[in-house]
């Protein structure tokens, strides 16, 4: 456990000390400022717009972070040969992967937390009050990003970061549209295309259910069964992907 923790902490440190992170954070700030600058123009609707923009912004930026940093995590260690040190020490490859994953989770958690704080302050400023249920969609964004993170790790241990990023982004988009894909599958007549699409549907992370943004924007009641379902689904998905990735990784030559 201490080994995994050391690797996770090291990964987190790398993220915290990297320029990529700060470039992205500055980007977030710029977007938030331009949004708040827009707000006075749309009277009455401003709180709703902030919630919509804010949550979408948090999701988009943390997904970007997961893809940009996540797909380079393992690749960089192999490419720069820093992995030689870990590989020659008594560390299972599974422990290495898990450590990398958890370190990235820590980083994503911190960034989402910081953005949530800014978001909360914004809502508080506009509405004069803040209901904690607004943080539920933020938590679900973290869950979603955790899934993206494992997909990024999977693809980056298979291919190069660029290809990995492209695949991960496609998975993210398709995962968000997973309900539509299901609808499409149901409408198709029997045939190879239907089977392929169906398999694809089951491989995709089903992220439609992880989205609680509408409830937050329109103040509708939270569907708790949906939340529990999304949580256990994501947990299972992450575990399965972690196992597949470490199986691939187990056999790999580090150049």
């Amino acid at each position, binding site marked *: 456990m*201490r*080994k995994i*923790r*050391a*690797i996770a902490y*090291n990964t987190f*440190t*790398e993220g915290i*000390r*990297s320029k990529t992170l700060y470039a992205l954070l500055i980007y977030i700030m710029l977007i938030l400022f331009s949004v708040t600058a827009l707000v006075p123009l749309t009277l009455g609707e401003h709180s709703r717009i902030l919630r919509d923009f804010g949550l979408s912004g948090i999701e988009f930026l943390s997904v970007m972070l997961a893809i940009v940093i996540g797909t380079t995590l393992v690749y960089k260690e192999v490419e*720069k*040969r*820093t*992995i*030689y*040190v*870990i*590989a*020659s*020490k*008594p*560390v*299972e490859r599974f422990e290495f992967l898990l450590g990398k994953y958890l370190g990235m989770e820590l980083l994503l958690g911190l960034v989402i937390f910081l953005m949530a704080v800014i978001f909360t302050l914004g809502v508080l400023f506009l509405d004069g009050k803040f209901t904690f249920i607004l943080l539920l969609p933020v938590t679900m964004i973290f869950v979603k990003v955790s899934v993206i993170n494992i997909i990024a790790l999977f693809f980056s241990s298979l291919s190069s970061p660029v290809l990995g990023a492209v695949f991960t982004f496609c998975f993210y988009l398709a995962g968000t549209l997973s309900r539509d894909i299901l609808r499409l599958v149901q409408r198709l007549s029997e045939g190879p295309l239907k089977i392929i699409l169906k398999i694809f549907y089951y491989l995709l992370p089903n992220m439609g259910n992880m989205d609680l943004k509408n409830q937050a924007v329109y103040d509708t009641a939270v569907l708790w069964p949906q939340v529990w379902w999304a949580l256990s689904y994501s947990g299972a998905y992450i575990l399965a992907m972690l196992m597949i990735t470490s199986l691939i990784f187990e*056999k790999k*030559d*580090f*150049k």
Partner: protein
Amino acid sequence: MTAVIQIKGLYKTYQKHFWMPRQTVLKGLNLEVEAGQIFGFLGPNGAGKTTTIKTLMGIIRPSAGRALLFGKDPWDIEPKQRIGFLPESPYFYDYLTGLEFLVFCGRLFNISSVVLKSRIQELLALVNLSYAADLQMRKYSKGMLQRIGLAQALINDPQLVVLDEPLTGLDPLGRKEFKDIILNLKARGKTVFFSSHILPDAEMVCDAVAIINKGKLLQVGNLADLLNARIKAIELNCRNIPEETAGKMKSRSLSSNTINGQWQFNLKAEADISGAIDLVKAAGGDIISVIPQKESLEEYFSREVAGDA
């Protein structure tokens, strides 16, 4: 005593792209390293030294054959508890300070914080890097990386230390320090296995060497045995001999020269020594020294590798 390192019929092939032919880098390498030795692993560029070492460290898998550490597969983590490794032209996490990096390495061995703290101080002092402990490694010079690399290789007080070209990138003082560290490891009963291109240095510290070329073993053995097998000449230095004796000596020698009344004769074989000494003494001369002229490791290496071309 069992061998610390055993390499049996090791093959490694690489394929850059699937449409390109496979390149065989290691071609049935066999090697054994006994405990307590300083073992030099020599070979020209591209001979396959680093590839062999990477296989030993569980970084890459053999295509065929086996590489064993303490009789165990380096793909297991158990033998790795007892080894230390310094990679070739090391590069470490450049966002960490030297100290943070050593702490990280120690944690990978589950070393307790108290032990780790004092060991890190010792190691930093050993490699002369205490002054740069809190500097980020991106600001380290090549030699400093080499030094921190040696420190991390020793963090677990390993039984076997594997060093891939530990002396490159070091200044002359650094090379001396590293050689002393290697000798000191041996004095403490450790085994050191290292590759090197700096043959005079290797000759100074090694008990045994292996020479590989093009993925195959050319020679292996005790350094003394390998080099003594070819004594080039025996150098006899003497003084105060008359012209006539000098002439007789010349005829018995391969070559000779004289400086300020001191003569140097290069005798062909050991059998010639006593006769030559008698001759000098009979003429009232003084013997200064008798030195066998062994082949240097460098010459031996060049000859072996050239012969394999």
